[in-house]
């Protein structure tokens, strides 16, 4: 098993920050079951998928790996993968802090004006763990619904938490994306 120390070494060799989102993508390739741990099988599987067998080749692949985040389908998979990976082993839901951290990481490059409101909403109103369904539906929500919330459908089978979020936005008058 490669644990935290080993991973730090790996990051040094690759010249990436351990907090860099690229580590998530690499873990995804490996299909790692939990963060900060790679089993031998997972490690080898990942390298095979990336077709690298030396550190240099790995380093060269970094920009490609980073670009994978821009592919919509891959991002979708990576995003959903992140849930099982980042949550505590053996738990069904993800702790709120972890979730917020992950979201910030994942959506850092994407244009997501509602993200801050979402995190604030959770911290003030919800304060509990995040379920898998909420996690996966959030991506759909950000993709499908405009910032102005004009096409938000109340009957749209969104998770209850997201409905509450919309209410929260309406209450605080944050749903106007038009110029005043």
């Amino acid at each position, binding site marked *: 098993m490669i644990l935290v120390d080993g991973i730090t070494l790996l990051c040094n060799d690759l010249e990436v920050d351990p907090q860099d989102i690229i580590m998530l993508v690499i873990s995804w390739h490996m299909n790692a079951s939990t963060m900060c741990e790679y089993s031998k099988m997972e490690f080898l599987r990942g390298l095979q998928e990336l077709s690298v067998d030396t550190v240099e080749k790995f380093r060269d692949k970094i920009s490609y790996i980073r670009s994978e985040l821009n592919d919509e389908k891959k991002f979708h998979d990576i995003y959903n993968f992140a849930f099982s990976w980042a949550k505590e082993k053996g738990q069904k839901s993800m702790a709120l802090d972890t979730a917020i951290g992950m979201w910030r990481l994942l959506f850092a490059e994407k244009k997501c004006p509602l993200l801050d409101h979402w995190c604030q909403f959770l911290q003030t109103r919800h304060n509990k763990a995040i*379920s*898998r*369904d*909420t996690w996966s539906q959030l991506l*759909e929500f950000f993709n499908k619904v405009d910032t102005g919330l004009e096409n938000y459908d109340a*009957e749209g*089978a969104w*998770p209850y938490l997201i409905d509450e979020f919309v209410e929260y936005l309406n209450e605080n008058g944050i749903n106007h994306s038009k110029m005043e």
Partner: protein
Amino acid sequence: MSNQKKRIFQIEAFQNRVVVDPKYAEKTWKILEHAIHEIYNHNASGLSFEELYRNAYNMVLHKFGEKLYSGLVTTMTAHLKEISKSIEAAQGNLFLEELNRKWNDHNKALQMIRDILMYMDRTYIPDTHKTPVHELGLNLWRDNIIHSGKIQSRLLSTLLELVHRERTGEVIDRGLMRNIVKMLMDLGSSVYQEDFEKPFLEVSAEFYRGESQKFIECYDCGDYLKKAEIRLNEEIERVTHYLDAKSEGKITNVVEKEMIANHMMRLVHMENSGLVNMLLNDKHGDLGRMYNLSRRVPNGLAMIRDVMTSHLRETGKQLVTDAESLKDPVEYVQRLLDEKEKYDGIISLAFSNDKTFQNALNSSFEYFINLNSRSPEFISLFVDDKLRKGLKGVSEEDVEIILDKVMMIFRYLQEKDVFEKYYKQHLAKRLLSGKTVSDDAERSLIVNLKTACGYQYTSKLEGMFTDMKTSQDTTQGFCSSHPELTDGPTLVVQVLTTGSWPTQPSITCHLPFEMSALCEKFRSYYLGTHTGRRLSWQTNMGTADIKAIFGKGQKHELNVSTYQMCVLMLFNNADRLCYKEIEQGTAIPASHLKRCLQSMACVKGKNVLRKEPMSKDIGEDDSFFVNEKFASKFYKVKVGTVVAQKESEPEKQETRQRVEEDRKPQIEAAIVRIMKSRKVLDHNNIIAEVTKQLQSRFLANPTEIKKRIESLIEREFLERDNSDRKMYRYLA
């Protein structure tokens, strides 16, 4: 004997042609013309029918049909012109009579003429497609008399004048009217319609327009409707007496439009006499009339129904939010029952049990009863009151009637599960304190609930009754197997199955020695026959009867709660006890203890204890003594009963919370049931199906259903479909 030669007869054709006398036609016609004159001059008796018929026959036969026919037309026309003049000359009232008389004459004449000319009618006329004699006679009458310039308008205005007079109360010659009108009808339906009916309807419309305007200003709603009804009936009667039956619908439409439809709004909403006023005052007669008249008018019934509905909803809303009646649940429910009865009466007596009105009533009641979330609790309290004392001495049938009425109100509740919770609580108290007026009434109500809500609703309630019965047997068994205990205190035990009875936190206290020993004996007896069960004493629900002797030797039997008994028994061993000592000695929780002491020391007539200081509230430093001076008129004194009461705010919140908690598994069960059979279903349909399934118990909240779905997704009973996020799939 002659020797005559045989002669053969020969028949020879005529050798000379028969020449018809050229003047023959003229001569024959003259005969007939003369006859017609005579007929019109009422001199027909001198004529020979046979001869005239033959003449006419011959004319036609010899091809003079044309002459005959045109001669007929000319002659008849001339006569009619004469007649016309005489009718025109008639003065005033005699006009119609003259017209009528002449018409009868004409018909008689026509009849005879037709008979005479029958051959022509049957041969020449069909062949030449000319108008048959009878019809010809009518047409000529029409053209020369009815449509003659001087007669046409005079006829119409006379008729209309007469109708108008009759409407204003005069008596007219209806027979004459009938004949004239029949004449018009005989002349053809277009004559009747153009020359009479159309103008008649127009004039009538104007008349009723004016009259209704007048009436609406000076009559109130009820009286106006009476007037309208009278007018309507008058017109119908008029038609039967002297108009064409087909006119009935048309004239009634006119009246309905002018007198009712045009003023409907104003009538219904008339202040102090309109629909609302009638409803408030149960004016069945007026309401019935309004119903019948509105039925005749497009959207009339809909309008009344809407006004009734909104009035009822408003009244109902006030009923359920009125602060006064909210203080007394029994009063609250009684008012609802009264209101229902009132409207049932109105609908059956005045609205002829119209189903649409019945439905409006039901939806209104359902609407406002559920506006107040305490309705289920109050209804249960009402029933409780009835079953405790209200139904004492009431006959079995009357009991049924009252319970049926309550059941009707019950059906309007949307939150039937809340009612169930309260009902269970109240029933428990009734059963345990033995305070039911009639066992049959209780059972009957349970049966009614079962019919309304299904067997599951009542299975636990029935369990409670079973427990009571079984406990009776058990107690008996206990007493008979321990004959040595007959000298000591008598123990009556009710063994309650936990699942059936409302859950209470079980708080035990220290029982006095005599009792605890007895209780232990019972426990061993029971567990001896029922192994594997656990018994826990519910000391907060029991009662006791104690014999007490006070300072001056007054003897009383006190009926107290178990807690009160524990407190009192302490005074057998001490004259004075302070609050803390009592608390320690009995281990009764503080709030209950305070209530208990208060009921024994601070209530007039029940103050078996004396307290120092004499304040109303129980303080932790108070001291208690037996009240040696206790006095009561009665030997048996009831000190504190466990009566069902309207809940306090915190209690209500608690119950409501428990109900909400209970609903969650029910919703989940419904979701799972539905998904199991459908396998895949979209969001909106699940919500609809679940709501429908749970409808008989409570109104499911879509948000709550959504939360349950998410919970089930979390627990991997369901999943979202990969391509359509609004679809859910059942995971086996």
